């Protein structure tokens, strides 16, 4: 039971991590809590649904419940979501930054943008639940008593791949390094001649892309609905803060911890209280170690 919960937790954690990465980056580089971030998970999920609708869901292959078409759809949707995420910055956040608005004003602009985005999706798709595929999958016993779905393993592998890619980008690519510099000190990096606008654009695109990927694959495990992203908002905030804001390994670790904690919590608590776990984790970490596990203390 406990081992199964931990294994399931790692799989949910992989999705939470992908969501938390972008949130953590924007928290550190843009310096505000982007409440609209989770909506890009939902947007990604629905864009992929539209793409799957055009291409067909594809025949299940390699033991997975979907074919290569869904993967293509996910990449298309995530790229588009990345661009939309940057677009939101262009129409809402950047004008506010330019007008010298306080960071907290950006927070509630994000709040407003989140509601508008989510309800535009409701306007198009309604409140019905959608599925990418109606294929049923049977769990495979890996060790006695522990079952995993091939889809889950695929999602975990994909998450590891994306995180590695992002890590290489942040450590080797010029813009990636500039992003880390901005995270450290915006004013100092400006003095060093870093093109702030380009760094910000890249950050928005990456965070939208990652969120949309998380959204597509969280829509795969059960179904798509307009609250898919916003229901996970507290979890991804908890993960981003738990791991230490601005730290990529931190967001991944935080995501896994939140995923595992949520699943362990379900062993002892009523399923209706599931969202309570990330909240308690969040309060706990803010109380004991507000800079997060891997975060560095700043003055």
């Amino acid at each position, binding site marked *: 039971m406990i081992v199964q919960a931990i294994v399931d937790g790692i799989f949910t954690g992989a999705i939470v991590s992908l969501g938390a990465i972008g949130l953590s980056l924007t*928290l550190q580089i843009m310096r*505000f*809590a982007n*409440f609209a971030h989770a909506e890009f998970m939902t947007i990604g999920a629905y864009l992929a649904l539209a793409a799957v609708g055009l291409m067909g869901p594809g025949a299940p292959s390699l033991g997975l419940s979907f074919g290569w078409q869904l993967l293509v759809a996910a990449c298309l949707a995530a790229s588009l979501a990345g661009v939309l995420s940057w677009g939101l910055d262009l129409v*809402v956040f950047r*004008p*506010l930054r330019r*007008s010298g*608005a*306080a*960071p*907290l*004003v950006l*927070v*509630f*602009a994000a*709040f*407003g*943008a989140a*509601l*508008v985005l989510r*309800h*535009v999706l*409701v*306007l198009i798709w*309604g*409140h019905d639940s959608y599925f990418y595929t109606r294929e049923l999958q049977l769990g495979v016993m890996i060790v006695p008593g522990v079952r995993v779905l091939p889809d889950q393993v695929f999602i975990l592998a994909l998450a590891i791949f994306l995180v590695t890619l992002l890590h290489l980008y942040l450590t080797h690519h010029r813009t990636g390094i500039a992003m880390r510099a901005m995270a450290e000190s915006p004013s100092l990096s400006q003095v060093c001649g870093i093109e702030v606008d380009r760094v910000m654009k890249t950050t928005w695109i990456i965070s939208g892309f990652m969120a949309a990927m998380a959204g597509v694959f969280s829509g795969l495990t059960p179904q798509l609905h307009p609250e898919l992203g916003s229901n996970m*908002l*507290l979890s991804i*905030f908890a993960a981003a*803060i738990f791991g230490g804001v601005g730290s990529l390994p931190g967001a991944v670790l935080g995501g896994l911890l939140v995923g595992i904690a949520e699943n362990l919590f379900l062993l002892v608590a*009523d399923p*209706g*209280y599931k*969202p*309570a776990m*990330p*909240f308690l984790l*969040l*309060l706990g970490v*803010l*109380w004991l170690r*507000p800079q997060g596990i891997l975060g560095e203390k700043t003055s």
Partner: protein
Amino acid sequence: MGLASYLVFFACVVLVLCILTMGLNLQWGFTGLFNAGVAGFYAIGGYTHAILTAAPSPQLMGNYGLPWLVGIIAAMLVTAVAALVVGLITIRLRGDYLAIATFGIGIMIQLVSLNLESWTGGSQGITRIPKPLSTWFEGSLAYNLFYLVFMVVVVVLVYWALERILSSPWGRVLRAIREDEMAASSLGKSPLSYRLQSFVLGSTLMGLAGALYVTFIGFVSPFDFLPILTFQVWAMLIVGGSGNNRGAMLGALVVWSIWAASGVAVSKWVPPSHAAQGAAIQVILIGLTLVLMLLFKPRGLLGERAVVSRHLVY
């Protein structure tokens, strides 16, 4: 007759929202604290009042049937304690963390109100919440008219009290901290302590609003405190003008009018089969109002008045 009772009902709701918005104005407008859990604190007040005062019912724990005033006071106290706990944990951190934690509070209260059925009645809610002095009036319109007058008195009292404390030295310290924390602390004022006080006091007002609302409706359920409410109250404050209590009240009226009017329009022109889309249009409208206000008229309809010390000599 139908219109008159609707208007009375509408006015009572707006007055409740005025208290909520003024509570938020104390936190955001005067202290710069971001509370993303307005609906949560509102619900704590509403449920505390309902659990203490509702007539006993066999299915539910609670429902003590206590006097109305006890319920009101307890609602404010319990909300204050909840705000104190969240505040103590997050107020020393960067402003966004308070937003995230209070956002969580809103979700937690939803969870508890839906799942703790033995106390809250789950999605059925709690009914038979007493209306004070209801035996004196015949018919609901007469009672609602009385309640309207009562609410006007409460709102005027809250407004007057807030204006008093905000023009006192205490209020000046709040604004000083909002404008320049370091300067304020160099004058020996503790920003943490003042922020916490403002946060707790503002939340207490939200708890009061919750208790007054459930008294008026006579019923409480989780659907009265959806997260969208937090956003509506924010829109009211921004539209009206944060940092100005009259603006806050004007915003409550304007935004709630937009909300109600768009609701009527949607129910008239959108077929019932598309009710979800109709409701979505309403939310999008409010969301756009807020974002456009922030972009083009950030001070709101009635901005904060510039206060210059009368001791200042030019």
